[in-house]
């Protein structure tokens, strides 16, 4: 089941009612049943995976808590991490690796009999695997006690708002809430529903409209020129923002309506003045996860090497983040590029600060705007790799960008709608960034304004939304 299916619109209110009718102590059971039903509706067999990851994580974290021996604890931690990573590797990377190895062997005139694996990637597997790993490491670090109730662990791994595409939550935040959930409150319901409404708007009206154009351009590299690619390249970050950001908001809102606080995943990313700031505002749950569980341990062990140690740790962390997004060389290139951007920034922090200081640029609106545009451009360029299906395709795109100009392909109706509503989204982000608390619409003091705004956005979604079942991040 996906959030944009009609099925969900029946499922969600029903689960809300049932969950609030269950006494708080047992609410996790209702939610667990609902979550398993939700996941079952994608492909039943995949439920075995979530259940397996739950069992393994539960068993190993309990064992870790039971042993005072640090060495044994570390071994148990690694055991679980490797074990629950296996399905992810198998489903996501086996085929690519197999194909590459076969090609290599064929080049050496050797035949290699392993069959191709065409299994579908279990949706959400990258997300809940990371959540379970985070929990395991938290228990190892003694930041958390291992949860004794397996039902709560199972719910953490499969909680339906988060299971398909995050945010990648932490056990430290979710487990206490599952143990003693909040009482039914009008404020939670109304906040949650508002977030969901805006999320649907971002996803269906902005992202999917822009997506039609971008898909068209990227589907046919041969016939589209550099001007079209320039438009597609510029729009793609906005599509991704609407897509994953919107989907995250729906998830956060759904959880909120049921009384659970889930972390924000995006914080107006396009108003960042540097790449490092951008990565503190974009897909926050993933990037903090990578910081805490990959970058920090790596840079800690490389710390003797000073700045170079940090650079290597950064590159490795983003390389892993790239591979997490997709099992292909394009994502490796994408990850490396992010690592390089951040390393360069880390290396020049001081000189850039001096420069801003000397000319008094830090507070100048035009300089801030320019920095935002520069940061955006870097990100948009790096996303060409993520959007292309092969490395050579991305190089073709870059070549076209610099040489092949002409009249761009224009899909008037989709572009007008997409860009018009993108402007609305950006205005709203601009207000939250620079004029917090002003020009409130969804939270206006007047009921009439609020009411009309909800109605207007609702009908925007109905009339201008692209109703489809596809969501970019599912297969990541």
């Amino acid at each position, binding site marked *: 089941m996906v959030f944009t299916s009609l099925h969900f619109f029946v499922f969600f209110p029903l689960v809300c009612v049932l969950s609030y009718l269950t006494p708080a102590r047992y609410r996790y059971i209702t939610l667990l049943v609902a979550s398993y039903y939700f996941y079952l509706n994608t492909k039943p067999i995949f439920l075995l995976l979530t259940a397996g990851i739950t069992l393994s994580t539960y068993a190993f974290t309990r064992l870790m808590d039971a042993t005072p021996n640090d060495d044994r604890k570390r071994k148990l931690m690694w055991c679980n991490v490797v074990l629950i990573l296996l399905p992810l590797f198998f489903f996501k990377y086996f085929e690519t690796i197999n194909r590459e190895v076969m090609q290599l062997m064929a080049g050496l005139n050797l035949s290699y009999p392993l069959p191709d694996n065409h299994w579908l990637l279990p949706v959400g597997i990258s997300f809940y695997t990371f959540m379970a790993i985070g929990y395991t490491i938290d228990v190892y*670090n*003694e*930041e958390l006690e291992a949860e004794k109730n397996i039902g709560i662990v199972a719910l953490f791994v499969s909680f339906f708002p988060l299971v398909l595409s995050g945010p990648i939550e932490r056990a430290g935040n979710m487990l206490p809430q599952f143990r003693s959930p909040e009482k039914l409150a009008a404020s939670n319901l109304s906040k949650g529903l508002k977030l969901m409404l805006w999320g649907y708007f971002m996803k269906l009206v902005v992202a999917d409209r822009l997506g039609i154009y971008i898909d068209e351009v990227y589907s046919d590299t041969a016939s589209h020129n550099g001007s079209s690619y320039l438009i597609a390249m510029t729009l793609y970050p906005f599509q991704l923002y609407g897509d994953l950001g919107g989907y995250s908001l729906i998830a956060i809102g759904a959880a909120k309506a049921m009384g659970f606080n889930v972390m924000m995943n995006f914080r107006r990313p396009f108003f960042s003045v540097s790449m*490092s700031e951008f990565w*503190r505002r974009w897909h926050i749950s993933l990037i903090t996860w990578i*910081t*805490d569980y990959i*970058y*920090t*341990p790596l*840079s*800690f062990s490389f*710390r*003797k090497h*000073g*700045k170079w*140690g*940090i650079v290597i*740790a*950064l590159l490795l962390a983003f390389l892993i983040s790239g591979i997490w997004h997709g099992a292909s060389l394009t994502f490796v290139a994408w990850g490396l590029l992010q690592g390089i951007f*951040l390393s360069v920034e*880390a290396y020049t*922090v*001081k000189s850039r*600060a001096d420069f801003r200081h000397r000319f008094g640029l830090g507070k100048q609106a035009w300089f801030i705007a320019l920095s935002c545009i520069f940061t955006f451009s870097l990100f948009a360029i790096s996303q060409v790799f993520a959007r292309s299906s092969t490395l050579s395709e991305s190089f073709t795109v870059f070549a076209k960008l610099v040489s092949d100009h002409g009249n761009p392909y224009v899909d008037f109706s989709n572009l007008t709608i997409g860009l018009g509503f993108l402007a609305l989204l950006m205005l709203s982000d601009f207000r939250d960034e620079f004029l917090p608390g002003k020009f409130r619409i969804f939270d206006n003091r007047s009921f009439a304004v609020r009411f009309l705004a909800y109605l207007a956005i609702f009908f925007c979604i109905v009339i201008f939304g692209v109703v489809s079942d596809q969501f970019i991040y599912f297969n990541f």
Partner: protein
Amino acid sequence: MNRSEITEKLNTIFPTVFNKPGLSITESLTASDVDGWDSLTHMILISEVEKSFGITFKLKELNKMKNVGDMIEIIASKL
């Protein structure tokens, strides 16, 4: 070395790492209070602290440092 001596020593390290000559620390100071104290500079800070006190932290201890007070406590336990 007692806590105030540790604090004093830290007060020489922090301003150089973060390039803020006037920066003076308190026990409740956290990363979000200092401009430029991010995950990158944090590791530089850690290795500077280790060097000048002649100690090594464990990763686990690193995760427990939520503010400067925690850091002082962990340093004190190692001296």
